[in-house]
């Protein structure tokens, strides 16, 4: 501490004694449980520390952002997550969003598709088909999804994990048919299976073969689809399941280490693939903590890549990320209040320096958004980007005494949590033992309890509530939402079955059978990448359920611990 800092600290003590002792304040903690001082001053923020720990945007350790001019050069991409019903319906929604100024697509699949089932599978509930996303059974659906949308002019993000190999192959062949070679395709695959075991739950195979498939995709993309982000490692979903801000950072980066180690085993150099690792985070309502979290995470990843993995390419050290609103912060009561929550969460994302953002729609505490609510979410991003001046300068919160303090503390706490993961055998062992599941369930419960007993305020839910009446027929409090909700097309299931029957009738079934057998052999071998085999099967209209069925027959399925 130099003399000027000592003087500031001494003055702060004086101020505290003189001012605050007269009017004591209650202790306050952030969402993640960190004590918050009434006022922050430039404690220990020497010039030397600035250059080492904060630095300049576009330069190591990237605390202030991965690009030198950030949004002044390029505004983040507005990437609303969308998909429902059939491929034709979703195609219409994509065109609608693009016409209204959306700059990237983000595809939501229905649950059967995410879990590798055909829509015709007898073990699924028929009304899950096309319900929370679009049903994709074969290449035909993928072709219809992007009908009239040139793949060389758009970037597409896919929420696919256990069955990424199939989705990537379908997109590649769709591009091929449009005359766009795979080397030119741009987009992002989620492909993060570990977080599926921890949250979200769309896993199929046990962890070990799952990691192999993830690595197959990363390796294949590094060689053949170089402009695609081969994985998007997620903190978002564990946060939604109950993690706090620094745990979100810690689990995501521990996963990133696991994938990096897995790919390195194949003899690749870290700089061959790390520039295409990307991330997904949540932005919740604790505005400053969330902005600080994104900054801390970026810095920590840069240090891990450089110091632990010895990467030389700065692109490997740059943590590029997408962030979305924290769905669990949304309330079903007084749903229009969610517009304000979403706006603040978008602000936290942008103040944290994200590369792309999704703003949730106010009706998503109920169901998937209507056209109108989806457009409003897009407008929220556009107003923040173009009407607030937020893009004029880089990292406007940088240098805030409070935010820099939070950035330091989150980095430190995330490191401690990552060490806890390592001490327990790493992420896969933590998943298999249910250790993180247990923590998340307990924390989610404590948070809900705090809302129910009023310790934690949710406006319109436990404070400033409109009346206390219960609907006599339903027993629901303040039942009327007053908003129009999207309707599910009752014929999706029938339409998908018809399509599937046609495909099975019109394709070369003997060829498909042979290709599925080839895929099986590749899956059984230790060193064959399955991607080329999946590509051949997809090109010949093998279905999702058939290809994943083959992989299930080799790898088996998995039941994850619940932590309860």
């Amino acid at each position, binding site marked *: 501490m130099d003399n000027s800092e000592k003087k500031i600290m001494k003055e702060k003590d004086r101020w505290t004694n003189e001012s605050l002792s007269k009017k004591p304040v209650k202790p306050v903690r952030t969402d993640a449980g960190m004590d918050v001082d009434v006022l922050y001053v430039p404690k220990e923020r020497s010039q030397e520390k600035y250059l080492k720990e904060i630095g300049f945007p576009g330069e190591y350790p990237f605390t202030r952002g991965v690009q030198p001019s950030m949004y002044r050069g390029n505004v983040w991409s507005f990437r609303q997550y969308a998909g429902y019903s059939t491929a034709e319906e979703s195609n219409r929604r994509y065109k609608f969003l693009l016409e209204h100024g959306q700059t990237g697509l983000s595809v939501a699949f229905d*649950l*059967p598709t*995410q*879990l590798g*089932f055909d829509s015709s599978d007898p*073990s*699924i*509930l*028929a*009304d*899950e088909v096309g*319900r*929370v996303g679009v049903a994709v059974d074969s290449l035909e659906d993928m072709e219809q999804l992007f009908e009239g949308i040139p793949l060389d002019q758009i970037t597409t993000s896919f929420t696919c994990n256990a069955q990424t190999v199939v989705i990537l192959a379908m997109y590649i062949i769709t591009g091929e048919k449009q005359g766009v070679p795979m080397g030119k395709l741009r987009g992002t695959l989620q492909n993060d299976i570990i977080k*599926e075991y921890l*949250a*979200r*739950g*769309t*896993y199929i195979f046990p962890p070990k073969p799952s990691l192999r498939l993830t690595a197959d995709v990363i390796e294949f993309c590094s060689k053949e689809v170089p402009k695609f982000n081969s994985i998007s490692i997620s903190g978002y979903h564990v946060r*939604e*399941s*109950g993690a706090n801000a620094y745990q979100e950072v810690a689990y995501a980066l521990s996963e990133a280490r696991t994938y990096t180690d897995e790919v390195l085993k194949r003899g690749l150099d870290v700089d061959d693939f790390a520039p295409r690792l990307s991330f997904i985070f949540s932005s919740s309502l604790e505005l400053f903590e969330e902005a600080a979290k994104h900054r801390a995470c970026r810095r920590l990843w840069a240090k891990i890549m450089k110091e632990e993995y010895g990467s030389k390419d700065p692109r490997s050290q740059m943590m590029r990320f997408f962030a979305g609103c924290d769905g*669990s912060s949304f*309330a*079903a*009561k007084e749903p229009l209040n969610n517009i304000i929550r979403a706006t603040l969460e978008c602000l936290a994302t942008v103040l944290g320096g994200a590369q792309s953002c999704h703003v949730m729609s106010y009706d998503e*505490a*109920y*169901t998937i958004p209507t056209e109108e609510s989806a457009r409003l979410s897009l407008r929220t991003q556009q107003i923040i980007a173009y009407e607030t001046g937020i893009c004029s300068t880089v990292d406007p919160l940088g240098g805030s005494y409070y935010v820099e303090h939070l950035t330091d503390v989150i980095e430190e706490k995330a490191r401690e949590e990552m060490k806890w993961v390592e001490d327990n055998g790493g992420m896969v062992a933590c998943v298999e033992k249910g250790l993180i599941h247990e923590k*998340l*369930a*307990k924390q*989610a*419960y404590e948070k*809900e*309890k705090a809302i*129910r007993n009023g310790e934690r305020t949710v406006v319109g*839910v436990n404070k400033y509530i409109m009346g206390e009446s219960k*609907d006599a*027929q*339903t*027993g*629901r409090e303040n*039942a009327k*939402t007053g908003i129009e*909700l999207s309707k*599910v097309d009752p014929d999706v299931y029938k339409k998908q079955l018809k399509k599937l029957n046609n495909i099975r009738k019109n394709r070369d079934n003997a060829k498909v059978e042979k290709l599925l057998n080839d895929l099986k052999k590749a899956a059984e071998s230790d060193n064959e990448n399955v991607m080329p085999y999946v590509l051949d099967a997809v090109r010949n209209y093998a279905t999702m359920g058939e290809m994943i069925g083959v992989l299930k027959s080799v790898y088996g399925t998995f*039941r*994850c611990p*619940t*932590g*309860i």
Partner: protein
Amino acid sequence: MHMQDEKIRVLIGKPGLDGHDRGAKVVALVLKDAGMEVIYTGLHQSPEQIVQAAIDEDVDVIGLSVLSGVHMSASKKVLELLKKEGMAGEKIIMVGGTIHSDEDIVELKKMGVNGVFPTESSFEDIVSFVRKAVEEKRTQRK
């Protein structure tokens, strides 16, 4: 031991393919904290598996947690299977999660679901519903 002193046993089932079970786990912990024995099935359970587990575990209550919008078909299936097993009316059925339409709530109750608890339901309401319903059922059986 009197029947009333026996611990209430609850099965929380997660029907369908949806993997978001934060709410299911929260309700499981609420009921555990209220002194009940709670079994959580985990993800991706078919109605058949849920009903079988409820029979094997001899529970008083079957709670179905649904976020993905399949609460109607999943509940219908569970009720049909219980009927098939000759156990219609034997178990208390409750459904919770994202149930957005009032018509659905009315329909679920008509179908034979005893309690419906949409998102943001009060913990006290859930606990007192289970206690009261189980007590009534045990008294009827005497």
